[in-house]
């Protein structure tokens, strides 16, 4: 809970002033009947006449206005405090997610993270607001009425004291039962969110296979589960009311019975009994509100737990232990020393096994190998998107773990295989590489990525708005924008993970040509399927099933590496038959 103090602190005054304003309203409520009794006692019976009554009337109206001010002020500060708290919490939660490593990201479904950032936080916000607006009011009324009851008749008041612990137990029990049910409910909400999100992302697949009915069934199932878990949780919560009312009624009956006997015996007046019954009503009414707050909190607590989970997620890849945070990538040398890697600890098989090689600054290196042999995993170790399990990756002779993540990743550009553009204009997307890039620079690098041509052909050019994920571009166009975006970063090391697969051969050749001419000092790693893409590079690394089976130039590998010559022949074969 200490974690949350920092969200309270900036709004501490609102957290305090809000309830104080509420007290004004409560006091007013007590004062109003008093003023009325003055009208009756002094104005009418005491004969002070109309002027006195009018004076008191005006006082009453003024009191009512004060109460209004108190209520409005209380509402204002409660809202100020609760939205402030929620806003800061939301921002911090988002920050935490931004710190997530690739592995952490794979742990949560996007749907679940989205629910936590919106719905769960809303729950907490609502709870705080409610707490602040009723917090002092209900307990205040409760305590006031209890005191009055004891003053009136201590023996009778004992009845109330007997009921209260029972009630507390009942509320506690209901809350304990409801808490896990609310957790389940929020989880089901995650499921609905996930299915919706997946459906929206894959809408083209859904439509082309005419799977709308299937998707609807899938959704229906999640939706019904959400409904059922909601009903299950609410079913417990609504028990609260009958339990409280029954307790209130039984207490009233008991009070009337014992009190009635006292009245009959002449130990108490009927007026006192009436007043006493009224106080019992007030006590239990405020108890009911308190219990409602507690119960609603159990839903918010379930949400809080889910938020805590995200905060408690251990970021398994940080630069906190980096030895040389000031270091930047200057030359672009890469070295793998006995690197072993797998994604999941309990998997038996290594994805990469005993990888050793050196890439010198400015070299262009190709990586080739069959589908699923670990090419992408290998290059992702360079910008430290994942950590090695054994061995080390060195950039400029410094272990990647010793750089600050920002410096390392600014020095190592990578165009991911599954790349994404964001909603926004083309220019905005390109500026991801360099926020301060001038138009000329953007044009130049777009030109190098062979993107300038098609961008200029759009009516709005670089200001063309892209839909989410760049849906309104063809695959090849998207890839070229992603390349341009990476080029704008001007890193010392550039990695292309099969980033031209959807680009035609001629364009691809042009892209490679411009790399050679315009990025002479940059170390370039190119993962490719086509030997033609890497045939004239300085060095080719051949991967097979997670192991390096050959390193060298094309001619060399043709002689020494069986896998390589196989791949080569598979591609050349076709040409011969053509």
């Amino acid at each position, binding site marked *: 809970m200490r974690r949350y103090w920092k969200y309270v602190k900036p709004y501490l005054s609102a957290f305090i002033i809000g309830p104080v304003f509420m007290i004004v309203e409560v006091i007013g409520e007590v004062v*109003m009947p008093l003023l009325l009794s003055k009208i009756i006692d002094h104005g009418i019976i005491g004969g002070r006449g109309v002027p006195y009554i009018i004076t008191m*009337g005006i006082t009453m109206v003024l009191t009512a206005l004060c109460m209004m001010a108190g*209520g409005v002020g209380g509402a204002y500060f409660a809202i100020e405090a609760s939205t*402030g708290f929620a806003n800061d919490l939301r921002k911090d939660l988002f920050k935490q997610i931004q710190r997530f490593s690739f592995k952490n990201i794979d742990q949560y479904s996007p749907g679940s993270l989205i629910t936590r950032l919106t719905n769960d936080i809303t729950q907490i916000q609502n709870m705080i607001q409610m707490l602040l607006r009723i917090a002092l009011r209900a307990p205040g009324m409760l305590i006031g009425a209890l005191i009055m009851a004891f003053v009136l008749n201590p023996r009778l008041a004992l009845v109330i004291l007997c009921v209260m612990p029972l009630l507390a137990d009942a509320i506690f029990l209901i809350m304990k039962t409801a808490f896990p049910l609310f957790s389940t409910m929020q989880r089901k909400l995650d499921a609905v969110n996930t299915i*919706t999100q997946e459906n929206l992302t894959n809408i083209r697949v859904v439509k*082309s296979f005419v799977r709308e009915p299937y998707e609807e069934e899938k959704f229906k199932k999640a939706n019904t589960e959400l409904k059922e878990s909601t009903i299950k949780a609410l079913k417990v919560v609504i028990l609260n009311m009958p339990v409280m009312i029954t307790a209130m009624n039984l207490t009233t009956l008991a009070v009337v019975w014992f009190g009635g006997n006292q009245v009959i015996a002449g130990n108490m007046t009927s007026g006192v009994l009436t007043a006493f019954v009224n106080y019992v009503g007030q006590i239990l009414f405020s108890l009911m509100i308190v219990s409602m707050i507690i119960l609603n909190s159990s839903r918010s607590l379930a949400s809080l737990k889910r938020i805590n989970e995200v905060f408690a997620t251990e970021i398994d890849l940080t630069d906190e232990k980096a030895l040389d945070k000031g270091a930047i990538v200057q030359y672009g040398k890469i070295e793998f020393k006995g690197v072993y890697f797998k994604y999941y600890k309990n998997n038996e098989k290594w994805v990469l096994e005993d990888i050793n090689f050196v890439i010198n600054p400015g070299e262009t290196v190709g990586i080739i190998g069959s589908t699923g042999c670990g090419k992408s995993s290998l290059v992702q170790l360079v910008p430290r998107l994942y950590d090695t399990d054994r061995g080390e990756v060195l950039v400029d002779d410094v272990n990647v773990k010793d750089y600050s993540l920002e410096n390392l990743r600014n020095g190592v550009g990578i165009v991911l295989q599954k790349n*994404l553009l964001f909603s926004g204009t083309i220019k905005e997307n390109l500026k991801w590489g360099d926020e301060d890039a001038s138009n000329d620079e953007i044009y130049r690098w777009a030109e190098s990525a062979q993107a300038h041509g098609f961008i200029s052909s759009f009516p709005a050019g670089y200001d063309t708005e892209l839909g989410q*994920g760049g849906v309104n571009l063809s695959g090849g166009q998207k890839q070229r924008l992603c390349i341009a975006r990476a080029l704008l970063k001007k890193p010392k090391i550039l990695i292309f993970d099969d980033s031209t697969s959807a680009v*035609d051969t001629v364009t691809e050749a042009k892209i490679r040509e411009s790399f050679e001419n315009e990025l002479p000092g940059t170390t370039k790693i190119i993962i490719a399927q086509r030997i033609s893409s890497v045939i004239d590079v300085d060095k080719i690394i051949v991967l097979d099933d997670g192991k390096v089976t050959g390193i060298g130039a094309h001619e060399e590998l043709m002689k020494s590496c069986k896998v390589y010559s196989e791949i080569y022949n*598979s591609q050349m074969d076709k040409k011969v038959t053509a």
Partner: protein
Amino acid sequence: MGRLSEERKEVLLRRYGSISAAAGPGGMGPGGPGRRRPGGFGGPRPGPGGPPGAIDGGKPQNTLATINRLLAYIGRDRLKVLFVFACVLVSSLTNMAGSYILRPVINNLVAVDRSAEEKITSLVIGLLVMAGIYLAGVVCSYLQQRMMVGVSQNVLVKIREDLFRKVQKLPLEYHDTHTHGDLMSRFTNDLDAVGEMLNQTMVRVFSGVLMLIGTVALMFIINWLLAIVTIITVPLFVYVGGMIGQQSRKYFASQQQALGAVNGYIEETVAGQKVIKVFCHEGTAIEEFQFLSDDLRKKQMKAQFFGGIMGPVMGNLSQVSYALSATVGGILCLTSRLDLGGLTIFTNYSREFSRPVSELSMQMNIIYVALAGAERVFTVMDEKPEIADPPDAIAICSEADRVVGARPIKGEVVLNDVTFAYVPGKTVLKKINVTAKPGQRIAFVGSTGAGKTTITNVINRFYEIEEGEILIDGINIKKIRKDSLRSNIAMVLQDTHLFSGTVRENIRYGRLDATDEQVVAAAKIACAHSFIERLPQGYDTVLEGDGANLSQGERQLLNIARAAISKAPILILDEATSSVDTRTERYIERGMDQLMKNRTTFVIAHRLSTVRNADLIIVLEHGEVIEEGTHEELLKMGGRYYQLYTGAVELE
């Protein structure tokens, strides 16, 4: 921090927040869908069951329509709601009766003409009666809540289902121009608000109104003059309440919109988290999120302030009227014939009057959020769906896999003078003429953005062509039921998308009734079998988040397997093997031959080696067919294809 420019802020708000202003500069690439309609939620559009619910700060007729539509969802549960109302009535009555009966019971205790024993007997009887009344009240109030939970959840489930169904029917243009997160927010945050209202507010409003009516009636019975004094303040209530309500309604609509924007931003960044990491873009993402979050808070504060002061303002206005009636009553006591007892009772009721008033106005907050949420949901429901099939549309099926009532087709596909533009005036396809005979393999070749994918998108009617016609076995595709058309065209899309679930389920997506053996057979055709076998749980390995744990090439193989399992007579392969290494591709080839046998196939590929064997190669340039023929013919021609091909050869 705080580096976000004003301009950028405005852009963010426009893009994620205010959808109605989403009309971007609008230029679209030739390669993909664009914004045909400026601004997603433009002008009024006729929708089923109600007028359009554009968010505009709440015109009364819209509100009414929204409420009507919500009520319509209760439909089947109408009887339950009536029962609930009956329960509310009973529990309100028992409430009043409970306190009313207390007086005679207590009065009895001090009656002078009775013995102690008699008093005790009557006390016991009184207590028993009270217990009976209380019991009835408790039972009713429980039943009413229990029923309402079911009713409101039924409504929510139905609305959510309808919304989902609607979203399935929306044309791709809609999906292309709206962020996923905003739509998702409608499913969760907006509908949650509606649920909150149904859960509590309906009952409370009803009981509040009952109490109000009861109290006012009693006040009139006791003293009509005083009652009128109290009632005089009612116009004030209505005026103030209306004013606050108007404000808060407006702000609640923008609050829900801002919530949708935050959701949209989160969805996009969470989905693109890896790219953000790679570009060290976290700082900017955080800043932009903070801006949107602050914006949400600002709007929440305004909305909830106006919603939140409704209670205290109205409640204390009724205190003012209490004060007035006390004053006037006091004067009446002195000047006319009102007695003290009458005044006490009256002022008590006047106090009672304030309870339902503040209770009712407290509910307004919930009602306004719910209405704003419901309107956002209904707006989507009123969006124009994909063009409906004409009533005489027919179903088709493959000859090999006949379906009753469907016309078997051989798979001849003819495009006659097909012209198409995503954005009016920016033609992407110009008078395309293609004839594919049954079983033929047609390849589209051309530089990126030449319109290759677009052709396949109009064949399966993802987008509707403007001019010309597309015929399948001589039938215009507009005359074929859309579902039937699409299920007879198997597609492997350029973007590989998988679903969370097992590998088996993902392959079976292509044909839901496929047996396990058929799944394996399809995987073998796609050369996916061997890598699937190597996965930890083989075919039962669960793929998370779009198959994040697979390589791109493996994902493509699964996509091919998914298409391979379908029996559709027409097949479209859009860059199906671009990320598969050439060795594997070579193995697939045999499977592909099997796959394409007896099917009309359209292939799009950059690797010219993949298209060489096609029966017909069509070379596209800027949306026009510039060359066509077989590989040999085209090479002989020495035109664009020759250049492309030899260019590739030279490079190798």
